């Protein structure tokens, strides 16, 4: 696959110790704990983790789509600017530059508005692009996601399109405002296997063509590796590993990553994803404050793991949040595969 | 007859008494006292009033007098049409559009007053009179008053201003009827042009009254206006426009009276009377009623066939309780079937006989003894009623309590409010029923007008066959009442006639084919700045609003 080289200089997006608390049954509970990572311009970053680990919440924190009542600490910077304090025209511009693609295209399109209306809405209302110009651009983009009869599609309603088609429309729509960063939250999970592959291919191609940066959220380690330059692995609302994608599978730094890899979810086995790790995944607010969150399920858990929460440390060009990382380096993949 | 003088004297007296009634009855919370004679009119109005909204208990159904058989139509027609003779507010009969003379006992000659005109300016002719009277008996029209003319042989013009009624038999009831609805005159030419539309919302009408018809929107109101070219210059109504409107229920009526949406009403058993009595926005006046609330015995073959049982029930009934419960005190205890207010002629005779009559007071001991004597202990009666009609229901329960208090049994047979009327018109509805309650009245101020429906064997309300062999076990005795009653009808002298009628009253107050319960007063409620309306039941038959106007 053709992958954009990491650009030199400042990162496009930067998360620094982002902690998100939400009101749950009256008290504030953390769903993200000290999340930090960065995406360089044009870079595709994978975000992998079990269900409930906080992937979507991370994307929402970036795009300021958190549920009402959410309390955020830490910092999100986009193009050097603090996203949390944006307002007015700046916020609008930011939202034009960051586009989001959701897991369920059907739920994320207004069923009573035509595709054309849906696609061009942001252009027309925010960028004041005239209707016919916006429609022309939409048809062009539809063509580039493999939808040839764009004119007709624009007149259709979402329910008249298949899921795969609709997700392609979503992708085209996301690209319509010429964003610099794409937040793709499991864009293919809701689709059937063949469609998944098609949509992914389109996404990947376009991204490279337009040298877009992307945060690609998935359960699937292999998929992340296939699409992304680097991958962030999350567990219980915490980042547990950041690593070059191509080394993630063969040389994981964190036992959790290794477990994910061992569960070997392949592109065509979404149905039984990640069932192989024994034990129940923890929510961020269930994670012990003074221990590694993964101890309960970790085959390598030792006393040191239960003494305090390990910090994110550098190892072999990546980052890992494991107290025994050094000690286990190189052994994880072998043992789990045995 | 010097009608003018009489009227003026009556009005003068009535004015003073009316004032008293307003001062005492209208403002104090207590009800009117039953014993004293009530004023028949209220003090004449003095100020012109542009518009008055007058309520009737339901919408007017017809403006054709031959179909006027209930309060709304009577109230309206008596302002629009005039009858050949006229009943005063006190019930006395005098000249109306004509004067009456009897050349012989079987001939009635009506001499039309000169100068009478209809609203359209056409003079009243004998043709109009003959036509109007004959309409009553035209089978194709099916008017409600044909029975009134049962002794009439012919009606014909016998001069340019003279109409003669030839009778098969002397009939001194008919004169009074000619002072009531059946004697009302409409314009022949006009009515013929209207055809079957006459008196309907689609048609127009033509009368001679001091008010003339303006418009009628069903469900909204009948609008009548002062007839400025009224033939009698002595009468000038103060009210320019009167809207006669059905008031849907007590609550709506009350709030409208208090807010001026309605300016007057002749109310009946109004549940909100206490509230209105104490409110400054309205004046409540009591006057003599001509009606009677009674228990109609509809079957003499059952337990009620024995007169002692009827008497016992009458003695056991708590009439005072009913007067308070249903009429809030605005009714009087009866002595006779007929209301004292109906003594329109032979007044001294009636009053004397009435004064001598015993009160119908409760006496349980005597009642129990009568039941024992009659061997009726444990026997059962069935009372037709409707639990949806409050007054009827209260009465039925009171009678049941009375029966049970004297050792009898009583069952209530309840029907819906709408079906209550069936007891009166459908013999099948009366099967298994011993009797039911009614509020009843005749066409004019004369006790015979009500008695005529229940004493004759063919009387329209003689449901139990009272006095009839085969249906009445005591027919031999009871038929005496009818014989005497029939004699009275042919008796020329008013006092002699009154004596006979009084004797009949006395007989049936003992026989009790109907058991009188109470006799409601007229309850006239007007905006407090209005006065002058009749305060007697005469409003049903005679122009009651000629003097209605503003107080001042």
């Amino acid at each position: 696959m053709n992958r954009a080289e990491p650009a030199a200089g400042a990162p496009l997006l930067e998360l620094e110790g982002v902690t998100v608390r939400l009101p749950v049954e009256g008290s504030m509970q953390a769903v993200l704990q000290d999340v930090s990572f960065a995406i360089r311009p044009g870079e595709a970053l994978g975000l992998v983790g079990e269900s409930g680990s906080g992937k979507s919440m991370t994307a929402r924190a970036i795009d300021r789509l958190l549920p009402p009542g959410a309390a955020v600490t830490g910092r999100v910077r986009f193009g050097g600017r603090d996203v949390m304090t944006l307002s007015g025209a700046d916020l609008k511009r930011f939202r034009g530059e960051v586009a989001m693609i959701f897991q369920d295209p059907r739920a994320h399109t207004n069923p009573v508005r035509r595709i054309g209306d849906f696609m061009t809405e942001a252009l027309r209302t925010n960028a004041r692009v005239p209707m016919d110009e916006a429609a022309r651009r939409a048809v062009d983009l539809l063509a580039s996601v493999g939808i040839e009869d764009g004119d007709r599609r624009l007149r259709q309603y979402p329910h008249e399109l298949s899921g795969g088609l609709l997700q392609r429309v979503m992708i085209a729509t996301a690209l319509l405002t010429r964003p610099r960063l794409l937040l793709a939250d499991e864009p293919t999970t809701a689709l059937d296997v063949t469609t998944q592959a098609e949509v992914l291919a389109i996404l990947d191609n376009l991204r490279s063509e337009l040298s877009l940066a992307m945060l690609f959220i998935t359960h699937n380690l292999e998929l992340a590796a296939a699409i992304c330059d680097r991958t962030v692995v999350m567990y219980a609302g915490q980042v547990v590993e950041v690593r070059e994608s191509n080394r993630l599978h063969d040389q994981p730094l964190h036992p959790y990553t290794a477990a994910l890899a061992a569960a070997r979810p392949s592109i065509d086995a979404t149905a039984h994803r990640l069932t192989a790790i024994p034990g129940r995944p923890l929510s961020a607010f269930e994670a012990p404050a003074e221990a590694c969150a993964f101890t309960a399920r970790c085959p390598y858990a030792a006393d040191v793991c239960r003494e305090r929460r390990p910090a994110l440390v550098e190892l072999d060009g990546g980052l890992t949040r494991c107290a025994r990382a050094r000690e286990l380096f190189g052994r994880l993949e072998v043992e789990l595969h045995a | 007859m010097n009608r003018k003088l009489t009227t003026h004297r009556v009005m003068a007296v009535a004015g003073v008494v009316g004032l008293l009634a307003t001062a005492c009855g209208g403002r104090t919370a207590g009800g009117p006292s039953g014993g004293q004679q009530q004023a028949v009119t209220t003090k004449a109005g003095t100020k012109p009033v542009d518009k008055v909204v007058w309520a009737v208990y339901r919408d007017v159904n017809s403006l054709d007098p031959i179909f006027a058989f209930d309060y709304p139509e009577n109230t309206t027609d008596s302002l629009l049409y005039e009858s050949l003779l006229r009943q005063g507010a006190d019930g006395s009969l005098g000249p109306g559009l004509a004067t009456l003379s009897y050349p012989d006992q079987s001939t009635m000659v009506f001499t039309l007053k000169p100068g009478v005109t209809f609203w359209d300016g056409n003079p009243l002719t004998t043709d109009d009179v003959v036509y109007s009277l004959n309409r009553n008996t035209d089978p194709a029209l099916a008017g409600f008053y044909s029975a009134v003319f049962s002794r009439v042989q012919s009606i014909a013009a016998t001069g340019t201003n003279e109409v003669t009624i030839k009778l098969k038999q002397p009939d001194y009831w008919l004169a009074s009827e000619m002072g009531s609805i059946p004697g009302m005159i409409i314009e022949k030419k006009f009515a013929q042009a209207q055809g079957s539309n006459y008196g309907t919302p689609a048609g127009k009408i033509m009368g001679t009254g001091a008010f003339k018809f303006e418009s009628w929107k069903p469900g909204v109101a009948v609008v009548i206006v002062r007839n400025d070219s009224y033939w009698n210059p002595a009468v000038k109504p103060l009210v320019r426009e009167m809207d006669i409107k059905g008031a849907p229920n007590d609550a709506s009526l009350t709030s409208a009276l208090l807010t001026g949406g309605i300016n007057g009403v002749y109310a009946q058993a109004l549940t909100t009377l206490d509230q209105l009595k104490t409110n400054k926005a309205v004046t409540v006046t009591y006057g003599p009623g001509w009606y009677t609330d009674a228990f109609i015995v509809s079957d003499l073959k059952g337990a009620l066939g024995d007169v002692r049982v009827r008497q016992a029930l009458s003695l056991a009934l708590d009439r005072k309780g009913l007067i308070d419960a249903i009429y809030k005190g605005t009714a009087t205890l009866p002595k006779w079937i007929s209301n004292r207010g109906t003594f329109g002629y032979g007044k001294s005779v009636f009053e004397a006989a009435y004064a001598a009559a015993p009160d119908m007071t409760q006496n349980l001991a005597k009642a129990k003894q009568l039941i024992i004597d009659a061997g009726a202990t444990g026997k059962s009666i069935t009372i037709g009623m409707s639990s949806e009609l409050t007054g009827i229901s209260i009465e039925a329960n009171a009678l049941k309590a009375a029966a049970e208090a004297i050792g009898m049994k009583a069952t209530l047979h309840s029907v819906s409010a709408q079906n209550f009327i069936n007891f009166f018109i459908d013999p099948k509805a009366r099967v298994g029923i011993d009797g039911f309650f009614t509020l009843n009245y005749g066409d004019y101020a004369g006790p015979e007008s009500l008695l005529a429906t229940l004493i004759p064997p063919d009387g329209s309300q003689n449901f139990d066959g009272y006095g009839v062999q085969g249906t009445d076990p005591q027919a031999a005795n009871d038929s005496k009442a009818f014989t005497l009653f029939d004699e009275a009808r042919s008796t020329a002298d008013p006092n002699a006639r009154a004596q006979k009628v009084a004797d009949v009253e006395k007989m049936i107050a003992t026989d009790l084919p109907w058991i009188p319960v109470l006799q409601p007063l007229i309850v006239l409620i007007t905006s407090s700045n209005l006065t002058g309306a009749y305060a007697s039941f005469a409003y049903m038959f005679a122009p009651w609003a000629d003097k209605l106007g503003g107080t001042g």
Partner: protein
Amino acid sequence: MGPAESVHLRFFVRRLAMLLVSLLVASFVIFAAIYLAPGNPIAALSGGRSLPPDSLHVLEARYHLDQPFIVQYWYWLSNAFHGNLGISITLRENVSDLIASRISTTAGLVLYSSILIIVIGVGLGILSGFKRGLLDTSTLVITAISASLPAFVAAIVLILVFAVQLQWFPSLGNGVGFIDQVRHLTLPAFALAVSSLAIVARVTRAAIREEARREHVQTAVSRGIPTAELIRRHVLRNAAIPITTISGITVASLIAVAAVVEVVFGLAGLGAYLVQSAQSKDLAVVQGISLLLVTTFVVMNVLVDVLYAVLDPRVSLGSRAQ
């Protein structure tokens, strides 16, 4: 276009057939019900006194009341087919004329109420749907009480407060001229609207809350659509579907409830007239009004269906009824 048009045509033809069947069945059932209720429409003319038997018989024969039920119904039906709805026994006038003169009152009342329901009910629902806090809480409490308030109770309360105490509005009758009629219809319209208004407000509030939570609204937020546009294009527009449905059904039901209000306020409307005619067994009038109400109800439902299909592209015409 062709197939869609024929689908629409089929929908309307089917609804028309349903209407005709409903009318026929309703006319028979109502006729039978009124017939079976013992009583006599002519006797109702006398208000409780006994009418002379002769007049009674003549009038009974005139209105075929002496005929067997099925013959009477046939007379009515065959006349109705020729556009003749018969004669009111009570008023001796054409039923169609009598009905026509009262349509405007009921239509005005229902229209006035509908406006109140839609403007106030939907308005209140939208406000409390978007704004939490005192307004929302008080709306919730007030609507909870008034939703279960029978129209006649509301009427009595309104009369007491606004007619008797404050004397702002009249409590009886129709009035003359436009302004006066509106004044006269104000309290009735509010009385009629109160409970429906509360229901519509609650449904609207719930619909707004529900639609505002939808994921596609998030999409719009993420695309930076301004709040006003967002509310208008994605929340209100979508909430309009359930709101329209409930409003349509509510307004259709007003026609039935109007009778109560008309009676209390002494309005010359169809509902009060229906009640009055049923009480006096004025058969032709009861039939005429009932059929008009059935027709109106069916037509209102068709309208709601059409509107529903127009508002929601996922719904095709007639699918609500299926």
